[in-house]
């Protein structure tokens, strides 16, 4: 049974809400992401009947319960694998994956990289609060070295991994970063994800109010944040600063911050999200605060057939060649003989 897909007009964000009470802590960044996504889906008139949210386990992974679409709250780390099954079974569906830094990068790291390299048509949002929230505050693979938590009272000794670097290392076709409280930008990036074919990966800097409050203060504080972040815009030079008075240029083999007063705009790095070669995107992903402003926006967005397209393509080709699926043909394919 496959029902034709109808784009619903005039849908409101409210229709994306479920009757379940939202159980995140007050001040948790998850609230904002939920609301923005509901808005974006509504504005786009996305069809709830054809939308599926899949998650793992973690505070963030409660997400599907609050989205009035189809959903699976899976097991820890495995959302991309579950979602791959959904997408292969029905490529018509819009399949979103919601995961955390522990869920998606610790236990789930392998599915994450394989989904990315296969370019399965999933929209993956990683809520990166640099902590294990649900299990009450252990350090995560994105926690900075020396982070003191319940499982690292003396400071963590694991170097962190950087989600976008890793995703690009795994050949992802779309990689972006946003901040939970930066509403218009978050909405913009979510919209762009919706348009992408293949794996679209978004890292959101998300505040865990209880176990890692203010980890991103530098990126959210309205007074100072523009000194610490730089927005990536396709075809535009990298300019930042509260007064938009600084830029990024490439000096030899390294980025460098320059004051625009002292340099010409032509020297600045111009962002190209469509570059086939991922090396510049990787270099951007390696810009870290406080040495550099950290980039927000779309690092990479290239065109490449998605896994499920290749899959269905192969099936269509076979059917064309071999004809309709008659069991007779299946059963009698080998060397047969008759008895009686």
């Amino acid at each position, binding site marked *: *049974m*496959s*029902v034709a*897909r*109808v784009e619903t007009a005039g849908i409101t964000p409210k229709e994306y809400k479920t009757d*379940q009470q939202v159980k995140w802590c007050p001040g948790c960044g998850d609230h904002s992401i939920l609301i923005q996504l509901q808005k974006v889906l509504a504005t786009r008139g996305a069809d*709830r*009947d*054809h*939308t*599926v*949210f*899949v998650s793992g*386990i973690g505070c963030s992974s409660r997400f*599907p*319960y609050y989205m*009035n*679409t*189809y*959903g*699976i*709250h*899976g*097991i820890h780390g*495995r959302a991309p*694998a*579950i*979602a*791959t*099954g*959904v*997408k*292969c*079974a*029905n490529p*018509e*569906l819009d399949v979103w994956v919601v995961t955390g830094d522990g869920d998606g990068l610790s236990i789930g790291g*392998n*599915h994450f990289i*394989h989904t990315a390299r296969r370019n399965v048509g999933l929209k993956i949002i990683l809520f990166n609060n640099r902590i294990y929230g649900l299990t009450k505050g252990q350090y995560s693979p994105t926690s900075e070295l020396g982070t003191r938590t319940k499982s690292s009272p003396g400071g963590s000794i694991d170097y962190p991994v950087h989600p976008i670097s890793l995703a690009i290392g795994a050949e992802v076709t779309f990689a972006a970063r946003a901040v939970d409280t930066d509403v218009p930008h978050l909405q913009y990036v979510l919209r762009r994800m919706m348009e992408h074919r293949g794996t679209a990966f978004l890292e959101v800097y998300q505040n865990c109010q209880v176990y890692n409050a203010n980890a991103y203060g530098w990126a959210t504080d309205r007074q100072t944040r523009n000194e610490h972040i730089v927005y990536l815009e396709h075809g535009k030079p990298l300019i930042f600063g509260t007064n938009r008075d600084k830029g990024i240029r490439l000096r030899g083999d390294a980025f460098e911050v320059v004051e625009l007063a002292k340099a010409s705009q032509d020297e600045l790095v111009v962002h190209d999200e469509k570059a086939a070669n991922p090396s510049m995107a990787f270099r951007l992903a390696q810009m870290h605060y406080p040495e550099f402003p950290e980039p927000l926006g779309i690092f990479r967005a290239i065109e490449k057939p998605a896994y499920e397209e290749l*899959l269905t393509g*192969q*099936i269509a*080709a*076979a*059917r064309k*060649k071999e004809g309709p*699926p008659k*069991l007779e043909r*299946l*059963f*009698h*394919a*080998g*060397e*047969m*003989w*008759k*008895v*009686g």
Partner: protein
Amino acid sequence: MRFAGDSGDGMQLVGSQFTATSAVFGNDIATFPDYPAEIRAPLGTPAGVSGFQVNFASRHVFTPGDRADVLVAMNPAALKVNVGDLVDGGILVVNADEFDETNLQRAQYGANPLETGELSRFRLYKVPITTQTLEAVKQAGLGPRDAGRCKNFYALGLVYWLFDRPLEPTERWINSKFGKVPAVAQANTLALRAGYAYGETAEIFTVRYRVKPADLPAGTYRNLTGNQATALGLVAAAQLAGRPLFYGSYPITPASEILHELSTHHSFDVRVFQAEDEIAAMCSVVGAAFAGAIAVTGTSGPGMALKQEAIGLAVMTELPCVIVNVQRGGPSTGLPTKTEQADLWQAMLGRNGECPVPVVAARSPADCFWTALEATRVAVKYMTPVIMLSDGYLAQGSEPWRAPEDGELPALEVRFATDPATFEPYARLENGERPWAIPGTPGLHHRIGGLEKEHVSGNVCYVPENHQRMVELRAQKVANVARDVPDQEVFGAQRGELLVVSWGGTFGCVRTAIEQARDNGKDVSHVHLRWLNPMPRNLGEILSRFRKVLVCELNMGQLQLLLRGRYLVDAAGLHKVQGRPFMVSEVLDKVDELLGGKAL
């Protein structure tokens, strides 16, 4: 009939040719290939020996035969490994050319067994297969290495003569296979004929076998391995259901051929996903089931262990799917290419929490087809994962399989929920199952997951009484599958002294043994279980009708414990964990022991 040689010698190839020819000829057959775990173990050593056993007969054959009547040994190592299984008085053909110093040493023979007289209880034929082959294929103009490679066909030709078999099918096959390299095709054909001619002319053989076509039910047949049959059963099931077949799997011996076979059936809307590991495979199955596919994964023991957490998710989300576990020797990596039945506990009891799953086991290679079909049907009907147990012996072995005819296949109805007005994700339907509502259905949005669910609404629920209730509802649902498990039939007398119970791939061997025992007047009957969970409703009653119960299984007593615990019968066990099937004689001996000589 057993072929044995070095793993580079092409024994599997001639074995399957011989099988095909015998099958076409109308014999009932059963095969059992046995190959080393290494891709290519060192030349000439026992570790590198590759064997292929074919059993064929005019009466119904259940097993590839414990012991061989005829053994073809291509080198000393092959002789060493296999000669213990040759019956006294059996025919032993050896490639005399290979019994030189080096090979004898590699096989760790002190002295040349062809000379010590240690083979005197067999009918030994020393044939210079290598030199004869080289001689025979000369005219094809191959290099010495390629020419030497033809010796397996020489041996095959010899055996064809011995059993009075036609050469044509194999010659046809050679031409289709090597057609592009005419020299090779010619050489192999020449070798085949030369072997046949040698039998005819050398006149050294004192017997020539003539096996009559067997008495199989009328129909169109094809020879299938267990893994092929499983694959076909799954495709058929999905076709009957009118849904795509999603197969998410990660390669592992001895289950990989299911993946391979399914990969050739794209035109049947088979969507094969070679996952990054078994966890991803099982998770993808959960996702695909949610989205409405017939979702299946296949693996073997260690991979099964990895899937358990996600199988738990399928239990909690109550999604239909099939997990095929082709058992191999364990624990851990164990004996990857050998057979065993030691994953029964793992399948039945190996998950966290109260996590029941129906379990069904195939009994022969061709039966894998029907078992796969049945597993799928039950999964969909009861909205539950179903575990299908196969094993290395079934998976690799082959058997004639009668292609089902029109109307012979069961109905496999899929009923998706469609009505938003009445839909409740965890409402209970007639068999205790919940409704299957797939994304894309207007108005049926709902969320499922691994946390405990509230009865009917499916919302997350921590209420103590609800948890108790849900555990019971899930258990009841699995128990309800018994409705689809036919009453158990007893082979032999319905009551008496001894009941032998078996399950899975030991069917052929145990049945053969019990047939023989009964022919010899022993008071013994046989029950072979297809469904392990739930068990047939009348099983307890059957068990109570016999004074003694013996459970035969290729493990250390897994079903035995379950039967004892469930039915409180003092069941004895015949256990074997040697990476190979029972021998009929082992079963017979145990039966004799338990009967203490008592007759009917």
